[in-house]
């Protein structure tokens, strides 16, 4: 019954969306928007109708209504409530409903901001076109309310690896980021079409860029954190295509955040900002395509229906074509003839924009090239961490250098001498700090490691220097905290990469092994039975010099469907994570495979990602209050 209502509201939203587009076209044609109330009514109703559909879908999951295909395939009565709820977006159909809901939510909120009327209606128009495309996709190929007759008694269950509290919130954050960029995309097209792409545009856009950027940052951080403790391989970033799919819009958006500041402050870089606004959302769509079309095999690839893939592919390419065509025809051609200064803030921002686009290209090639090569020639190449690290690292250092000095430069005049003065302060301090760290902790010296530590320390010093120099901290707080976070992140990543240790062994209860400087004792094993799984815990004692750490990793056997997952045990003291995971041995019943990892500064990786996001969120609130 609920399913019918859900289906109905979904269809109604499609019809209302048609009305909305129709009345907007009429208004645009006659160049008057007297029917403001009707437009506002349609826009709001679409949001509420979609919200009802989504809530009904959640309801179907909660009451385990197995007559619904999506519920049948992804849920089970013996699942805890929270996973029944998160199951609603833990599958292809439900996640597409969430996708469209967020599209309309942004349109709903945007309608209430103060913008020139024309700009507002065009934005809502483009947003409505996006909603139309994805609603048709949803209803035609992946209707979340499809019915099964007769009704099955029990569902198939949710992939156990996805049954995790973090994963209940990771997709919504990621989606708010991904889909959130749709608004600045529509807004940019509106600005281009109406020739309103100017300072005022970028002032409004600022909020709509930084908000999804912050949410995407958190979403990526959560996904990475989940991979770290759930997958049991000790890593937090695998350069997996699905991870890259979220990194690409993030890189484009980071460039956009900065170029938009230049557009706002100096009334420059209009075309570039417009292009980045379009490009960021296209990157989000590319990510959606890669993840959702079944092109990639991973926990994220829900659907393996080629028809869906073709539909997403064609609509994404159509969106790309039309948005770029609008850009080509209408791109703002303002030429400012002003003297070029190297040591000026907008120039440094532009340089780092180029670097960000370079990083983006590297990730794009690394992600897409192997897929296409495989399809065309049947050759498999593996593009792994080595590719990314060797290509990205050297340029990252230069990037960090410009990032250190950029914010200290003036917008309007060249101040080379001040920067040389700053350089004379930062350089010796960073040299001293990074060499102390290297000689204290590391037995071997690697040039990449030395440079990585040096430049990240350099950035941190420059941010702190900037911090204490600011008289009005409130204006700059967002930037300072995000930049500080980035410096700490790079520092932690380098230390972690070079100081991490991994031990593999096969052990049985009572065994003791000594590898490197660690002694691992396997003390005991015990079993417990939970609602939807059975868990076997191993009790281990790790002795590192004087320290004794008890760890209890486990293996879970889920009933529906029968599947084993390995649960890690992690103890952290903010400096080092002790990380333990076990696996069943296929060949010998008595022994189990143990993996022990020594992972320094992991806490700081998570904390710095949080700092980066907090900076963004602070900035959005400040902008909101200003408006």
């Amino acid at each position, binding site marked *: 019954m609920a399913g019918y209502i859900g289906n109905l509201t979904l269809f109604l939203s499609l019809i209302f969306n048609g009305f909305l587009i129709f009345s907007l076209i009429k208004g645009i044609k006659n160049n008057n928007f007297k029917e403001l109330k009707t437009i506002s009514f349609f826009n709001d109703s679409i949001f509420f109708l979609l919200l009802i559909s989504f809530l009904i879908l959640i309801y179907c999951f909660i009451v385990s209504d197995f007559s619904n295909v999506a519920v049948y395939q992804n849920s089970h009565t013996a699942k805890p409530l929270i996973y029944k709820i998160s199951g609603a977006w833990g599958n292809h159909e439900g996640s597409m409903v969430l996708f469209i809901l967020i599209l309309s939510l942004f349109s709903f909120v945007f309608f209430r901001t103060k913008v020139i009327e024309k700009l507002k209606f065009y934005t809502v128009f483009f947003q409505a076109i996006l909603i139309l495309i994805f609603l048709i996709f949803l209803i035609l190929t992946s209707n979340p309310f499809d019915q099964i007759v007769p009704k099955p008694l029990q569902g198939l269950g949710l992939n156990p690896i996805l049954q995790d509290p973090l994963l209940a919130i990771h997709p919504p954050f990621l989606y708010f980021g991904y889909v959130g960029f749709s608004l600045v995309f529509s807004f940019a097209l509106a600005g281009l079409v109406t020739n309103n792409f100017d300072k005022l545009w970028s002032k409004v856009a600022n909020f709509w860029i930084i908000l999804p950027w912050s949410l995407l940052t958190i979403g990526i951080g959560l996904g990475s954190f989940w991979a770290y403790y759930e997958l049991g391989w000790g890593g937090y970033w695998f350069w997996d295509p699905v991870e890259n799919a979220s990194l690409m819009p993030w890189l484009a958006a980071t460039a956009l955040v900065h170029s938009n500041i230049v557009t706002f402050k100096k009334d420059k870089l209009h075309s570039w900002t417009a292009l980045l606004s379009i490009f960021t959302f296209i990157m989000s769509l590319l990510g959606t395509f890669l993840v959702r079309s079944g092109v990639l095999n991973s926990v994220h690839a829900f659907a393996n229906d080629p028809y869906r893939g*073709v539909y997403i*592919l064609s609509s994404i390419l159509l969106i790309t074509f039309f948005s770029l*065509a609008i850009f*080509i025809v209408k791109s703002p051609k303002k030429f400012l003839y002003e003297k070029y200064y190297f040591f000026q803030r907008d120039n440094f921002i532009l340089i780092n924009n180029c670097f960000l686009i370079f990083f983006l290209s590297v990730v794009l090639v690394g992600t897409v090239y192997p897929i296409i090569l495989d399809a*065309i020639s049947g050759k498999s190449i593996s593009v*792994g961490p080595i590719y990314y690290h060797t290509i990205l690292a050297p340029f990252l250092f230069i990037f960090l250098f410009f990032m250190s000095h950029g914010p200290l430069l003036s917008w309007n005049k060249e101040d080379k001498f001040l920067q040389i003065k700053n350089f004379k302060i930062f350089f010796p301090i960073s040299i001293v700090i990074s060499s102390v760290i290297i000689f204290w902790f590391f037995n071997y010296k690697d040039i990449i490691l030395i440079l990585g530590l040096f430049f990240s320390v350099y950035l941190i010093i420059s941010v702190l220097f900037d911090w204490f120099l600011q008289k009005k901290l409130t204006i700059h707080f967002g930037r300072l905290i995000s930049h500080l976070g980035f410096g700490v992140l790079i520092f932690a990543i380098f230390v972690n990469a070079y100081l991490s240790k991994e031990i593999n062994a096969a052990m049985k209860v009572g065994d003791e092994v000594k590898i490197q400087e660690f002694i691992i004792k396997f003390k005991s094993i015990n079993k417990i039975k939970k609602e939807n799984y059975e868990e076997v815990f191993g009790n281990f004692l790790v002795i590192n010099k004087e320290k004794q750490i008890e760890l209890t990793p486990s293996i879970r056997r889920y009933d529906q469907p029968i599947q084993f997952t390995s649960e890690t045990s992690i103890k952290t003291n903010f400096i080092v994570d002790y990380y333990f995971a076990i696996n069943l041995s296929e060949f*010998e019943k008595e022994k189990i495979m143990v993996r022990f990892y020594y992972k320094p500064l992991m806490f700081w990786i998570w904390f710095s990602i949080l700092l980066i996001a907090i900076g963004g969120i602070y900035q959005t609130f400040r902008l909101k209050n200003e408006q």
Partner: protein
Amino acid sequence: MNNKYKITILAITIVIIFILFLRVLNSNKTYQPNQMIGKKIPEFILEDLFNKNMKLDSKILSEKDFVVLNIWASWCVPCQIEHPFLMNLKNKNKINIVGLNYKDENANAKNFLKKNGNPFSLIGVDKKGEIAIQLGAYGVPETYILKKGKIIFKHIGPLNEDATNKILELKK
């Protein structure tokens, strides 16, 4: 450049991307490790476990008529079970076996061979397990039969009577 040209170029690019990705969508994407059978081994050069100047090179392997490549690790329990079979293949049947030491500590690996004997003529050290993945391995142990660098047979799990017989058959 005229806008018309720009848009034409854009349209052509989009169509090309569409065709490329259509190919991707239509090709089978499920990862099947045994798809490597009948294919050439990936290119790699690995340091030997005992002698850093010696290299396990895929090019040299590709020149040999018959090579057995065994993926093993000292921490892997079933590797101990299959070890006598490897020793027999080498000593009795004079078969050239090369090893791929998977995610192992060098000292442990050497100890393992000291205790159980060394059937390998060369041992590539695959610290991160990357080459094993490229070879399409599920895990350790796994054994590959290479003819001129082509994988003609693969055995998953520890070797046994049947598997060794099969290897000897292939040798003929």
